[in-house]
């Protein structure tokens, strides 16, 4: 995407790029490992992933009991 061709815009763009260039970056190996770790550590709490025991599902309609 090209930026505006006027001077103030260009100055702002350069300032912005300076800021973005200066951020600290960690290694992807660390970032990826931590994402994976977070997923695995929280998997058992993730109802959409592992489901919930029938009795403790608040959205499920309770089954009626019939006394025979």
């Amino acid at each position, binding site marked *: *995407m090209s930026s505006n061709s006027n001077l103030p815009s260009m100055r702002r763009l350069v300032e912005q790029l300076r800021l973005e260039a200066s951020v600290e970056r960690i290694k992807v190996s660390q970032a990826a490992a931590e994402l994976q770790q977070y997923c695995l550590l929280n998997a058992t709490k993730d109802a959409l*992933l592992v489901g919930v025991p029938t009795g403790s599902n608040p959205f499920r309609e309770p089954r009626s009991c019939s006394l025979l």
Partner: protein
Amino acid sequence: MGEMEQLRKEAESLKDQITAARKAVADATLPDTVSSTAVVGRVQLKTRKTLRGHLAKIYAMHWATDAKLCVSASQDGKLIVWDTLTTNKVNAIPLKSSWVMTCAYAPSGNMVACGGLDNMCSIYNLKGKDGNVKVMRELAAHTGYLSCCRFLSDSEIITSSGDCTCLLWDIETGTQKTTFAGHLGDCMSLAVPGDFKTFVSGACDFTAKLWDIRDSNCTHTFSGHESDVNAIAFFPNGNAVITGSDDATCKLFDLRSDQELITYQDSSIMCGVTSIAPSLSGRLILAGYDDFNVNIWDSLKAERVGVLAGHDNRVSCIGVSTDGMACCTGSWDSFLPSFSFKGQDNVMRLCKQNKQQYL
């Protein structure tokens, strides 16, 4: 050399620097890192509740932090607050403008907000003394449509707009505190992480930006999408963002390594992504598409592991509750009975109403 030429050269040099810096930390890839992890099994979600009541297309929905209530906005000119467990409507709020595009629930549960083609963000107090829900504030300053809004607290809200900016507002005074300018196209979506110190925005300039709320700086710009970024969400640990685009892909960008880690795409998917939400652990990504299907992705393995589809299940918005128990989709569908998906005992709910072509 004129200043303009000097600046151009410096800009190019800085862009090269950023590219090089990103490359320098790219010592691994996400696929390599997770190569020994198995793909999750097929995910099949069952409709548990249907929230009926809107009379036109539902454009947006947002969960309350209690994971029981949610708010939805429809172009029938109503905001409805639902109790998702009982399916009761807690509030049905008539709007001044029916051209609503977004809605939000305050973390406290005290307020909801909405906005759209009226260019305003209207704040409603749900806990007024006499029990009536009234407009508390009308935040007007954007010169384009309101695409998204998210509360930071009862006194601050962030909005994104078709005027290419995002704004931080003081709700008490109804005035703008901070302007976040830098996007070169309509801002389509925004997301706030758990610490409320930053936010991310997706825009029609094909990028996503990370902003520092207090000093208004954009600290990271993520490119890679080949079309508008319509949807954006934080990965649950706050260290990554997921985006959905008109280029038919979703991407995961890591904030601390400042780069894209993976793309979620399939050659059979050719339509744009309209909404996106991660599951509680982040392992699943639910993405809504222009063909009104929802694809469920394994976020680590980048494989599609499920679909919320029925040919009349047309999804326009999606949200996962804060406790991760349920996913709510807003859709438009006429007179159909509730859908049932066979399979494991996961939870899904649908908001349904009449079918109406829009835009």
